[in-house]
């Protein structure tokens, strides 16, 4: 259980796919102009990563090394197609916003990368932890980015038609935040923040390790 939580928490902060590993960036930055779009993108990515990690981890002993990439892609593509069609049916507005990014989850570096690096070599239980950790880490970052961009840029936060937060009428946000450069720049600051948090986490882990060592030798 300890290993499970360790792998899960690693995915959220220490090895956050977006800010530390720098995989899965394309979709993250592109959909981060609206809060609800990135929320559902995060849900989609969690679903696809989880299901594909489980399947690939379950059949990993039967996949020959040379053809593993096409097999991964076929598995991932099936789940992405499920997400694609479901979203088109039940959330047409969100689907219209997300557009090309749903099919591009298939070649999302994160999904394929975790399948190759983790699910192919580890058991189902740990692969679930990794998938959930990576997915949640991804979702947290893009939701944070999108909320900041939408709030600062347009002065209100909307979700499925309902306005969650609205700044007063006289507020005029800088339009650059809503455009692509704003995404890059704000994301740079989020990465700087993640690095600071990781430094603190690593320092705390190092002192804890020293303490357990001393405790063990006593």
């Amino acid at each position, binding site marked *: 259980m300890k290993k499970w939580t360790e792998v899960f928490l690693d995915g959220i902060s220490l090895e956050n796919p977006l800010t530390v590993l720098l995989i899965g*960036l394309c979709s993250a930055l592109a959909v981060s102009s609206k809060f609800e779009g990135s929320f559902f993108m995060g849900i989609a990515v969690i679903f696809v990563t989880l299901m594909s990690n489980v399947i690939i981890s379950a059949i990993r002993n039967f996949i020959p090394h040379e053809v593993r990439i096409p097999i991964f892609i076929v598995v991932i593509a099936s789940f992405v197609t499920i997400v694609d069609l479901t979203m088109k049916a039940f959330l047409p507005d969100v689907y219209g916003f997300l557009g090309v990014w749903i099919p591009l989850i298939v070649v999302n570096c994160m999904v394929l990368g975790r399948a190759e690096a983790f699910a192919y070599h580890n058991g189902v239980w740990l692969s679930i932890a990794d998938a959930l950790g990576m997915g949640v880490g991804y979702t947290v970052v893009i939701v944070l980015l999108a909320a900041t961009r939408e709030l600062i840029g347009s002065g209100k936060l909307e979700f499925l038609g309902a306005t969650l937060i609205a700044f007063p009428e006289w507020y005029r946000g800088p339009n650059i935040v809503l455009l692509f450069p704003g995404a890059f720049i704000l994301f*740079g600051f989020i990465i700087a923040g993640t690095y600071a948090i990781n430094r603190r986490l690593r320092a705390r882990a190092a002192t804890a390790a020293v303490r357990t060592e001393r405790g063990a030798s006593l």
Partner: protein
Amino acid sequence: MPMQFALLFVGAALINNILLTRFIALCSFFGISNSMETAVGMSLAVLFVMTIASSATWVFYYWILEPLGVGEFLYIPAFILVIAGLVQFVEMYLRKYSPGLYHAMGIFLPLITTNCAVLAAATEAVKPGFFKMNMPYSFGFGEAIVYTLGVAAGYGFALIAFTALRERLDIAPVPSWLEGTPMSFITAGLLSLGYIGLGSLFGL
């Protein structure tokens, strides 16, 4: 006709630059832009693979998938199969007949298989605005090729410019809490700001 092709090319390369105004292929953007040799190698490899892949997927879509009516939901696995197979084929061909070129860009070829840009360019070469499914216009073969060349040129252009900037960032006095990747992103943001200015070329 040539004017239409020129506009298509410029539109794909500069105005709708795939990296900086559409965010596609960012992982490779930040991973490869450390040094100029790798950046140039990657751009050439992308140009090569994208053109061949787009032509092949266009042919497969309009001659096999569309006549059978399965294009709408089968295009993802079909295109990826074609692209992966083509990349493998190109790698083997280069290894035999052009070992110098193979070693120059050899490691990038497998990377490009899963490069978002290749899949995006391939699907859009079939139909612009493909994913909205409501565009009546379809690309002919010539237009598909020109569009893909434009996308690859835009990719190379942005990648090389960003690599040059990043090489100088290494030795610039940056505040310590922003050093490294955060500063690269902020620089990419400023570069993207520049490309937005190109959005009004030719009064488009």
